[in-house]
């Protein structure tokens, strides 16, 4: 009787050990990671885009005043020639460059009087959104099936401006200073508000 009991216990323990052994296995974490698809590195993409692709595109961007004049005289042509966006809709983003004199500074941005007299606003506080990502027309939506990757590109590009570009130049921003700038601006073709346009800066340089 005791012998039988012992065999039964033995069989139970053997069964539990066998189940446990076949249920748990160990694998190197590096092997597991190698087997999974690589997550999109938005920060790396944004850095390459901002420092390499965008500056080249900006060299071909129109002067901000030339763009404003063209929009006023032939809106459709201006939007077709210079406007880009990843979305369906009437808002398009434009790369621009320019220079001028700082005439006002507040919490949200810097107002710059340009040689032709049209003041423009450069954002220094709320640098968020898709302007810098979309304006160049270089980011191809068809290469991204995950919408969040595209959102993260915008977030990372804007983060570069907020954490690297603006802190380096903000202490030098003073009324009366001469400034050279480049950046991107969003305009809605269906409801043009040129007086409210705000440039998201890509570069700002004070001229001594």
């Amino acid at each position, binding site marked *: 009787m005791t012998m039988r009991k012992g065999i039964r216990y033995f069989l139970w323990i053997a069964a539990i050990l066998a189940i446990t052994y076949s249920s748990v296995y160990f694998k190197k974490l590096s092997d597991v990671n190698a087997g999974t698809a690589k997550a999109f590195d938005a920060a790396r993409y944004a850095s390459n885009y901002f420092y390499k692709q965008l500056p080249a595109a900006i060299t071909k961007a129109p002067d901000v005043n030339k763009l404003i004049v063209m929009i006023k005289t032939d809106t459709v042509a201006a939007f077709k020639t210079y406007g880009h966006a990843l979305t369906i809709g009437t*808002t398009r983003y434009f790369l621009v460059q320019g220079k001028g004199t700082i005439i006002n500074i507040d919490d949200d941005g810097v107002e710059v009087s340009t040689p032709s007299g049209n003041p423009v606003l450069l954002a220094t506080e709320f640098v968020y959104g898709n302007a810098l990502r979309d304006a160049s027309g270089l980011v191809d939506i068809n290469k991204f099936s995950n919408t969040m990757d595209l959102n993260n590109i915008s977030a990372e590009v804007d983060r570069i401006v907020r954490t690297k570009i603006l802190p380096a130049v903000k202490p030098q921003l003073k009324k009366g200073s001469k400034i050279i700038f480049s950046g991107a601006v969003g305009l809605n073709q269906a*409801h043009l508000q040129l007086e409210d346009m705000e440039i998201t800066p890509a570069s700002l340089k004070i001229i001594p």
Partner: protein
Amino acid sequence: MLLAACHSGHKTKQPKKIAVIVSTLNNPWFVFLAQTAAAEAKKRGYETKIFDSQNNTALESDNFENALASGYSAILFNPTDANGSVVSVTRAKAAGVPVFCMDREINSRTEATAQILSDSYSGCVEMGKYFVKTMHKKGNYVEILGIVADNNTWSRSKGFHSVVDDYPGLKMVAQQSADFDRNKGLEVLESILQAHPDIDAVFCGNDAMAMGAYQALAAAGKANQVKVFGFDGAEDVIGYIKDGKISATAMQFPKVIAKTAAKYADEYLKGKRDFPQKVPVAVELVTAKNVDDYVAYGKKN
């Protein structure tokens, strides 16, 4: 033989059919989306029918079953659940019926032929910027979320927080779901106000909940102190922005979404096969400053 020829001739004259399967017809926004999609498909020569899933994936699955059994050639689809709806789309794909998602996405990059979606994240980035400016970078606020299983809920929330969380003076004291429903929005905020009577703003994941939230604030005598922000561009909220009762909404364009989906289905049935998987449709911020440029669900022409 003559009969067969007549039958065959009759068959070729039958218009192809496009099904519109919508998450709910209990919300005017989705009624507008479904009716516009059906009207556009009809305009392009298709017979159409709208199926209401009543926010229920089981009913949605039945709707797919019926549509496939009834010989519909394409489905314009507004899903109820980003994960739970994938299986229905897969079934349609296996049956050779293309599915075009409208407004809400499914968590699959291969099953739908294309997904035409509001750019909710970017819309809420703009909303976040406006929120911070309006609140002067400080205050306590509540966030009322939509359906937790819907990706739009999180796209909107993430877009909003991608800006607002950079301002430590703005404190979220409560975050709760009200399922995109007006009555639930009212109940949820009533309950939150018991624990947090000192809030300064409410950000809602859609306009129906914003209307409910405003109702709760009005009943508590706080409508003038607490700012309400919505998302959608619904008719009543456009009116409330004009009256200064609601601070802002993000205008989606269901007409653009529905018409694009119907156009893609038509192109597919005529032989086109290369469609972008995700097609974002721009969302625009509507405030007291520009509200006169907009009507419900879109821009003034």
